[in-house]
């Protein structure tokens, strides 16, 4: 017989958990007492519960394992919600354990009591309130199973304080059989055959790769499919790395800040094969104008994603890895799409993918990102949310899946420092590189302390334009340059001093030479480092599709140059 807290530790050990991120508190005291006594996994004390959820998320994205966070009741739990919602939006496997007030106090507005399960419900894959010690082992087992199976996602377990102290028999189930939960892993063979035939009949097929390809570890199958069929591919922000950056069939990122060639390919293809992508509005633009000439194939493990936004002609429910493997067996290899490639080449010649005008007077963010990619091509990259996120997506050369961790679906500012902490735990001794804007860097800056305290090294690069840059960009273009609450000039902390106070190495750089020197210093240092990079203030992320416009209506860098020269 062991108590509930010990059961939690035993379950985490049996699930192979290496690290949990958390913050103690009154209702969680019993759990923390057991954590103190064990050596099976590491507990990392974050400085804010939101950081625990983001760190578990970053760990899960980089490792492919389930990320775990433990927090106390009430505010401890509510602070995690942004991180849980972030993981939910990007289908990241996570188990969040929150302590709750004792069963006898639930519903009495007790100190630090909140209806945690009620609050997490819209942003988790599933949730549990544990009412008895007998059900605790099964709930823990089910939570890990649900988090990592099917379409992955966060699972929340709310455990009252009395349960963490009550003793019971610990029988951890070896297998889980939930009658109501049976994800479909194998694609329907008839639908796969239909799609293979449609590829044969198609003149302009296009793959559209999303984060599901990474969740299902299907990169090899997809790369083989492309090698065999010579079908070009675009990807979403979440799909970066599924294909090698320089793969000749990689048309790169599509959507609001996608390349001209990628967006025109989406608009002109006659067969669009969506693989683990969900037709987010940042990709489709105006849906009535999206891929109008194409038959749509949609491969996804989540049936509710299919035909949600764009009606699918070939709906295939299944795990991407299995479906692509079956599709590889079905498609022939004597396909010829050379005319289609010529059209795409003409688009590329007209408006080359992701260009910018460099300058010697002022640092351009694109140059900084390019240099980092040149010096550390295998870095594990984390971004925050904003202009810098899109520049990284456009300019960093991702060659492998799980090399980029970024908040795609929810767009959570404050994600990157804690997520980088999680990535640093997943990728020991590898380069972990965090890009943030000056706005987003401040949002969870306290986690620099966690990095220092954990002896983890992350190189943080602030692309500092003294603006909330993405909002400023929209204000420039759509709000007649009324920069409402986005100008941060003269109201910034001294990031160098601030970072040093957290025990980091810190630099402020304004030129290319200074940046390269500082970056090499950071690579040599054993500590977490911060480089505050002063970049050009009015640089825009281009191409850009205005919200609600068709994705072929892009504002292109060339247009900007032409406008500026008038």
């Amino acid at each position: 017989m062991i108590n509930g807290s010990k059961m939690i530790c035993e379950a985490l050990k049996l699930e192979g958990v290496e690290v949990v991120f958390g913050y103690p508190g009154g209702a969680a005291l019993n759990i923390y007492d057991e954590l103190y006594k064990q050596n099976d996994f590491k507990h990392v004390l974050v400085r804010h519960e939101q950081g625990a959820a983001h760190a578990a998320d970053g760990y899960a994205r980089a490792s492919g394992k389930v990320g775990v966070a433990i927090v106390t009741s009430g505010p401890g739990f509510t602070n995690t919600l942004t991180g849980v919602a972030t993981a939910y939006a990007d289908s990241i496997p996570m188990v969040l354990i929150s302590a709750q007030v004792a069963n006898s106090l639930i519903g009495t507005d007790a100190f630090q009591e909140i209806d945690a399960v009620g609050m997490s419900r819209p942003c988790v894959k599933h949730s549990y309130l544990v009412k008895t010690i007998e059900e605790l082992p099964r709930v823990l087992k089910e939570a890990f199973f649900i988090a990592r199976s099917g379409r992955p996602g966060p699972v929340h377990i709310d455990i009252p304080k009395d349960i963490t102290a009550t003793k019971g028999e610990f029988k951890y189930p070896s297998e889980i059989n939930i009658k109501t939960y049976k994800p479909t892993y194998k694609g329907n063979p008839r639908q796969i055959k239909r799609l293979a035939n449609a590829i044969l009949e198609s003149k302009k097929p296009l793959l559209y790769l999303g984060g599901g390809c990474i969740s299902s570890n299907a990169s090899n199958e997809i790369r083989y499919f492309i090698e065999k069929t010579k079908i070009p591919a675009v990807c979403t922000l979440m799909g970066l790395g599924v294909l090698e950056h320089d793969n000749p069939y990689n048309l790169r990122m599509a959507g609001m800040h996608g390349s001209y060639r990628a967006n025109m390919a989406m608009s002109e293809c006659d067969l669009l094969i969506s693989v683990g992508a969900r037709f987010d509005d940042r990709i489709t633009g105006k849906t009535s104008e999206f891929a109008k000439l194409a038959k749509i194939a949609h491969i996804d493990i989540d049936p509710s994603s299919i035909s949600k936004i764009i009606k699918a002609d070939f709906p295939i429910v299944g795990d991407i890895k299995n479906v692509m493997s079956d599709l590889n067996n079905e498609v022939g290899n004597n396909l010829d799409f050379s005319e289609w490639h010529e059209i795409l080449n003409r688009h590329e010649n007209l408006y080359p993918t992701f260009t910018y005008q460099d300058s010697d007077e002022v640092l351009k963010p694109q140059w900084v990102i390019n240099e980092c990619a040149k010096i550390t091509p295998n870095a594990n990259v984390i971004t925050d949310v904003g202009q810098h996120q899109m520049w990284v997506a456009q300019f960093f050369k991702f060659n492998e899946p799980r090399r980029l961790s970024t908040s795609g679906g929810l767009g959570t500012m404050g994600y990157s420092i804690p997520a980088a902490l999680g990535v640093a735990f997943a990728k020991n001794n590898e380069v972990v590189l965090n890009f943030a804007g000056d706005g987003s860097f401040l949002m969870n800056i306290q986690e620099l302390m966690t990095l220092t305290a954990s002896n983890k090294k992350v190189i943080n690069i602030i692309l500092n334009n003294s603006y909330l840059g993405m909002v400023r960009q929209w204000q420039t273009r759509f709000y007649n340059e009324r920069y409402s609450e986005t100008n941060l000039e003269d109201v910034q902390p001294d990031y160098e001093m601030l970072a040093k106070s957290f025990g980091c190495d810190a630099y402020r750089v304004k030129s290319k030479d200074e940046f390269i020197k500082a970056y090499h210093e950071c690579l040599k240092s054993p500590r977490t480092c911060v480089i505050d990079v002063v970049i050009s203030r009015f640089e825009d992320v281009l191409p850009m599709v205005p919200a609600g416009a068709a994705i072929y209506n892009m504002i292109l860098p060339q247009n900007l140059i032409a406008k500026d020269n008038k």
Partner: protein
Amino acid sequence: MKRALSIIVSNEHGVLSRVVGLFSGRGYNIDSLTVAPTMNNEFSRINITTSGDDAAFEQITKQLHKLIPTYKVLEGCEFVERECALVRIGINENLAGLDSLLKSFNGSIAHSNDETITICVNDTSDRIDNFLKTMKKFNPIDYARSGSLLMEVK
């Protein structure tokens, strides 16, 4: 467009709010809702009537399937439907014709005292709508409806 769906879910706490949360999260109104355990106590049946366009309804159906405790979502099939209504009227009203009305709607008097009588009818929702319209001439004091109980026709 009026819709009816019947959802078989695990009989556990919190499942109802998961189901109705999918409707409220999309700003979709529920016209009626009934819940009770099925013959197999492990499951409950949630019956919902609502109205809305095809696309939104298809999404809700898919999202209902996605919930972990959902076992089956029955919609678009032929249902046997029954709803119960209770109507309270004053004893001093002119009750001429009430008897024949009760007969034609399979109704009965469920309760009476020296001030009011309470009538119970059990029929399809549409017929209960008509019954309540007809009852207006008796100046009802109050009424209560159960919402649709549904069972698919095999």
